[in-house]
């Protein structure tokens, strides 16, 4: 299981700082072995989303085993959907997680680090909706 390529993670946020901070946290918890690419903010550094940033992150995150994308809110989802509908030559296995951003990123990254496939990583992220923190 662990000798294959790992699933990559893409974090899409309206805020570059939020995406990068979440990537740092999830990466450390999972031992730093998973590729986590971020697409935060607009091209000119404002709060918002950028389809080009998401596309670059998706290509960066793909190591051959597929990619799971976590959008933060609202138009992050729309931007991801627009990219997946329109772009050519994307990685073969791409899934979008309907999950809380921080918890989903941590759960997805840990499952990717353990060698889980796209389906396992996606369900780990989505199960984070039910995780209690207290």
């Amino acid at each position, binding site marked *: *299981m*662990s000798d294959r390529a790992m699933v990559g993670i893409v974090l899409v946020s309206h805020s570059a700082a939020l995406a990068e901070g979440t990537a740092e*946290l999830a990466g*450390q*918890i*999972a*031992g730093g072995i998973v590729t986590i690419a971020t697409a935060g903010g607009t091209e000119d550094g404002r709060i918002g989303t950028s389809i080009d940033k998401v596309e670059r992150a998706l290509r960066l995150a793909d190591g051959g085993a597929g990619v799971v994308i976590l959008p933060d809110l609202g138009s992050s989802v729309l931007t991801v959907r627009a990219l997946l509908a329109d772009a050519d030559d994307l990685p073969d296995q791409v899934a979008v997680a309907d999950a809380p951003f921080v*918890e989903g990123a*941590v*759960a997805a990254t*840990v*499952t990717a*680090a*353990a*060698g*889980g496939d796209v389906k396992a990583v996606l369900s*780990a992220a989505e*199960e*984070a909706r039910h*995780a*209690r*923190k*207290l």
Partner: protein
Amino acid sequence: MPESCEASVTLAGDLHARPAGALAVAAAKFSSSVELVVGASRADAKSVLAVMGLGASSGQQVTVRAAGPDAREAVDRLIGILAEATKVGG
């Protein structure tokens, strides 16, 4: 023939996010089911969020229970991580 196995360790430090991640990554590589028991709380060891949700702290006893073909290896591995990773916290 599935087997089950369990062992306990007393934490030398709090079970922080990083050791929880190391535990979940290790647990997910076994085919056996693995759970952690702390007092009245249980968590699937393969779920990092569930492990963190235990809030296990220094001095508490954690029991690792596994059931399946590699239960013994899973328990040995996780007990080792719990003993080592909570030494300095995380």
